[in-house]
């Protein structure tokens, strides 16, 4: 037996051969990628990426949809957009949805999650019930609540009748209609956020609670110093969904107010639909779409930055 390694003399490596970049596995990888990726890439490029780019392109034109865009106007549509009050209303309404989601819906969802993450009798039924509105189509939620809010036949009608007040049409009040819609949004979505929090709570190691108890923390202190800090990533996620939801808010508004009265409940998307699509102002509408797109990008970047900073 030879003890020390000695170079084997059978055949020196043939350089040209061994330097070949791909071997069989790599080659098959390429074949697989070439077979498996095109459907997704094609679909995605055609219906997601291209339209985004086209929105940016169309937004530079004044175009009523006939033929191809030819009347180049540069940033004209954006200037017009920014000078509109409705645009500010729409932006503010989107912002309101986010604010309400964060400062009202999130605490409600978190609180209910803390109650329901414990095993209490009937807990599962409550979870399902609270989640139920999330499953309803937004259109349906809007319709149901339009009925609830109806000053003649709905809940509000009944209440005004009980207290002998004049009929009150909340969706016709430009000062209140948006708040009525916000209530519906909380009604529909808190259950979803609650589920997120329940999942987040269940991921927390039970031993931490025991340790905190042993360390002498009260129930409140456990919540304040253990539970809530550990739910931070869930809160971020909840905010992420709230922002994304706000930016595409459309279906609930349409059956309830169509964006009215006096455009007081327009969001970016209803504005895009009502003032871009319905009025056949494709360039203007595309400018709204592009602004929405930019908001998404900015949000994504800010969100990612914040996320990574905390992770470090």
């Amino acid at each position, binding site marked *: 037996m030879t003890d020390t390694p000695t170079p084997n003399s059978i055949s020196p490596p043939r350089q040209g051969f061994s330097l070949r970049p791909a071997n069989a596995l790599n080659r*098959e990888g390429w074949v697989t990628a070439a077979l498996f990726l095109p459907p997704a890439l094609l679909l995605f490029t055609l219906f997601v990426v291209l339209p985004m780019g086209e929105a940016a392109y169309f937004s530079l034109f004044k175009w009523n949809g006939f033929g191809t865009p030819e009347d180049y106007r540069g940033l004209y549509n954006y200037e017009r957009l920014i000078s509109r009050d409705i645009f500010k209303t729409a932006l503010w309404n989107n912002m309101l949805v986010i604010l309400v989601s964060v400062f009202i819906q999130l605490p409600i969802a978190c609180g209910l999650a803390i109650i329901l993450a414990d095993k209490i009798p009937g807990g599962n039924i409550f979870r399902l019930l609270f989640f139920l509105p999330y499953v309803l189509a937004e259109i349906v939620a809007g319709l149901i609540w339009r009925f609830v809010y109806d000053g003649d*036949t709905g809940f509000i009608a*009944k209440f005004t009748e009980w207290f002998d007040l004049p009929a009150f049409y909340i969706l016709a009040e430009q000062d209140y209609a948006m708040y009525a819609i916000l209530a519906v949004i909380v009604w529909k979505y808190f259950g979803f956020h609650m589920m997120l929090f329940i999942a987040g709570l269940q991921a927390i190691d039970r031993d931490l609670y*025991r340790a905190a108890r042993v360390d002498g923390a009260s129930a409140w202190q456990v919540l304040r110093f253990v539970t809530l800090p550990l739910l931070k990533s869930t809160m971020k996620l909840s905010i992420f969904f709230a922002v994304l939801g706000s930016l595409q808010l459309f279906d609930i508004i349409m059956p309830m107010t169509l964006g009215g009265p006096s455009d007081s409940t327009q969001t970016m998307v209803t504005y895009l639909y009502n003032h871009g699509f319905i009025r056949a102002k494709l360039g203007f509408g595309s400018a709204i779409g592009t602004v929405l797109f930019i908001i998404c990008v900015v949000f994504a970047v800010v969100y990612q930055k914040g996320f990574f900073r905390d992770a470090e």
Partner: protein
Amino acid sequence: MQSEPLDPGLRKPWNFVLLYKYLVLGFVTLLIIAPLITTALGGFKSAADLRTNPFGLPTVWHWNQYTDILLGIDYWRYMGNSMLISAISVFVTLLCSTLAAFTFAHVKFFGKEFIVGYLMVGLLFPVATAILPLFVKVRDMGLLNTYWGVILPTSAFSLGMSILLMRNMFEKLPRELLSAALVDGCGYIRFFWHITLPLSRPILATVGIIAFVASWNQYVLPLILLNSEERYPWPLGIMEYQGEFTTDWHLILAFVTLTVIPAIVVFLATQKYIVAGLTAGAVKG
């Protein structure tokens, strides 16, 4: 469900904290349920009954308001359209995204991260951003007012999330399984077919159900892309119906109830997958 309560103090019998918790839960339940119950009952009431007595049981049960809808053609046509659009959308989504997610999870090739990043961009953008150019695009492709015109964009916009969920899942498969299969004589394609797919049924179900629900409930795409009522899915149908009967709320509520019931039944049957999928989607952060 964990066995340990979050707050160990809870175990005391007849705890007031527990009582308060039930009071809160009861109150929230009422807020959730009241509109829904009223809606379902409202469908049985006459217009006058609904007006004077929105909360109580119907004084006379008008079954015909439900049966009229069920015996008419519109309801079934809307449901059939939704079913068709959603089913094909889910199929297309699953087909494209499993193939792509598998490639991303298991195959090494140059430029992979770039392509993944490219597809993930789609996660961020709501369909609504692009309705105008989508409309133009679908028109130029000659797909306006066709089922495919709705199906393809729907699938395209659900790709990002589906690929993400499935890639996470595929990557959790032990790497040795791939090695073993390669040694056993599989290529990537056979591995995909014989190992990955059979092992991924739960995630396929989850992704499929989520895509289905999204497509079933969607409103804005069909609204701009479909013209003839014959092809309307139910959310457009219900708006059409509502437009026709405006504030004949008793009829609208009956229609609403009938469109909601399938969704609730499916939800109860598949809630495990839905919740799992949403919270798994949550992992991406």
